[in-house]
């Protein structure tokens, strides 16, 4: 017999006084937040030490709805803000939670450099294939030939393969799921949060109001079916193989990279200790 819960277990993470949120019905961002909140609960991080940093855009609003130390910064710049937070207080768990346009277009330079440095951050990128907040413009993740307001006849460009980008720059944990895969996604976020170094999780999500409607791809339910039918789980596959060039292509999901490597602060402390000996003031408690 099921027992009714008095309170939604993720409610403690939410700023209920800010509800209703701005996301459209059928949007995948809320689903991703639900998975994130459950993952945080499961991995038992001290919530007072958990910070979420967002940039600008629909996913950029996530920080504002989470009852954590949360920072809504500028467009594309969540990663360098998060870098400052983490380096100034290494005891913090710092999560960057933003969208594909924010992290891969305007913020692309910061993404690759954070991965190269292997800063201890968890980066969650909700990829809804277009710019939602500004009304559905083309993104560096839009499927080839799909329509957006600024490519009204179809996108002539090719999208980023974000897991490949992150992995090739040095990320130690790289995964992709869709908002259909809520159980797997939650488990992956737990691993990403626990992973030392830069972890990158891409979450494919429906944007029913703009991307699906303009491209006549149906509703969010249709996209969930599409995610279900097109997805193939391939853990450990070379991320080079997981591109999403066209809408018809299979969607490879799973945990692609999980390697161990010293993070930025490990290297910093080790090298400076070696050079400076006892004069060095080690940085960070861990």
């Amino acid at each position, binding site marked *: 017999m099921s027992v009714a819960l008095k309170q939604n277990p993720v409610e403690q993470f939410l*700023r209920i*006084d*800010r509800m209703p949120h701005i996301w459209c019905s059928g949007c995948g961002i809320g689903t991703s937040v639900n998975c994130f909140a459950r993952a945080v609960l499961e991995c038992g991080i001290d*919530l*007072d*030490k958990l*910070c979420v*940093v967002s940039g600008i855009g629909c996913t950029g609003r996530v*920080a*504002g709805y989470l*009852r*954590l*130390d*949360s*920072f*809504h*910064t*500028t467009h594309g*710049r969540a*990663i*360098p*803000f*998060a*870098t*400052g*937070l*983490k*380096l*100034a*207080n290494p*005891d*913090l768990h710092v999560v960057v939670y933003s969208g594909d346009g924010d992290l891969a277009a305007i913020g692309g*330079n*910061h993404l690759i*450099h954070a991965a190269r440095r292997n800063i201890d951050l968890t980066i969650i990128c909700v990829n809804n294939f277009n710019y939602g907040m500004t009304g559905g413009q083309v993104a560096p993740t839009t499927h080839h030939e799909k329509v957006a307001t600024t490519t009204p006849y179809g996108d002539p460009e090719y999208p980023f393969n974000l897991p490949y980008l992150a992995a090739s720059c040095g990320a130690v944990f790289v995964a992709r799921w869709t908002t259909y895969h809520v159980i797997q996604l939650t488990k992956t976020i737990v691993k990403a949060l626990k992973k030392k170094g830069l972890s990158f999780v891409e979450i494919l999500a429906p944007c029913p109001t703009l991307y699906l409607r303009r491209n006549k791809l149906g509703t969010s339910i249709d996209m969930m079916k599409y995610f279900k039918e097109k997805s193939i789980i391939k853990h450990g596959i070379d991320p080079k193989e997981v591109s999403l060039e066209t809408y018809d292509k299979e969607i490879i999901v799973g945990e692609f990279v999980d390697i161990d490597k010293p993070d930025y602060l490990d290297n910093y402390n080790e090298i*400076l200790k070696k050079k*400076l000996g006892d*004069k*060095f*003031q080690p*940085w960070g408690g861990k």
Partner: protein
Amino acid sequence: MAKIKWTTADPKGVLTGAHYLDGNHAACEGALAAGCRFAAGYPITPSTEVVERFAARIPLVGGMFIQMEDEIASSICLQGAVWAGLKAMTVTSGPGLSLMMEHIGLAAMLETPCVFVDVQRGGPSTGMPTLPSQADMMQCRWGSHGDYEIIALSPSSPQECFDFIIDAFNLAEIYRVPVFFMMDECVGHMTEKVIIPEPDKIKVVERRWTDKKPGEYLPYEPDPEDLVPDMVKAGDGYRFHITGLTHDERGYPAATDVEVQDKLVKRLCNKIYKNAPKIWKWEEMDTDNCDVLVISYGISARVALRGIEMAKEKGINVGLMRLIVVWPLPEPRIKELAEKVKAIVVPELNIRAQVAREIERLVAGRCPVIPVGHAGGTVHNPEDIYKAIVEAAK
């Protein structure tokens, strides 16, 4: 009552003694003495020595330097560090300052206490990387979009690079505002004796930490007296939210609420306007009953001394007002002096009279204001300042 807590410098950051330093190195030592424990930067001539020294010194003091991928990243990385609890700065020159503009607006909006050091060089664009100018004075004041106010200081010597950057950090903490330390290539690379005092002689302001508990604390509830809110840092259980969107006292977005916008933006400006008498800092020389007043700042004020000396040799009664805090200008004193003198002469290393025009606006016809402009690349010929004084004395 605003609770500003003064203390003395942490001895770990203070190299007490007499040194022979250029302005860039002295600024770094001043920042360390002020308690700066984090810097993010990107190499740019003629400022780079500041962060090079910081990168070498901070591992011995306890803190962190990171060279970021560009100035955009540096100018927000330092704000992350501030919200994690440290005092922080970034250092740049004109082209880098241009890239930092968005985050200067963010610092104004989030009320992030932080210091931007600009070692000014000739512009526009790539301009004259190795040579001086004072042509970023308006950019530091107005460069980011929207309405806000900032504080800017300008040193004239390596000793002042040390002394006044400490003021810059203190003002940033008191008013929770980005403070600009407007050096120039000449002061940055000029090498002179710099005396670094004992740590207990260096006055440092602590952050305005709230004494409220989580649940009671509102991130943007201003102190009724000085209009500045108290601060918390990440990781202390306050679960606070901050945003670059227009926000209420809770820090929550109110991006379509014109009343919230009105209240917030007016407060961001008023916290500087209304506290200006506590911010102003200037020096006067021979201003009692002078006929001509020279107002200048930074390297130009130092060069003006020779022009003033030449004018005095010709019997002209000329005084100097040297601005140390350039923004906000000490309006009442400038107006008072303008009532008494024949004219005001303003030498500065820009040709559009960036500070002189503001002085002219304040003076409002009380006397003529004569800019002595210069496109930069070198300092004024003192002869030009002398000639302007002679003209003004007629």
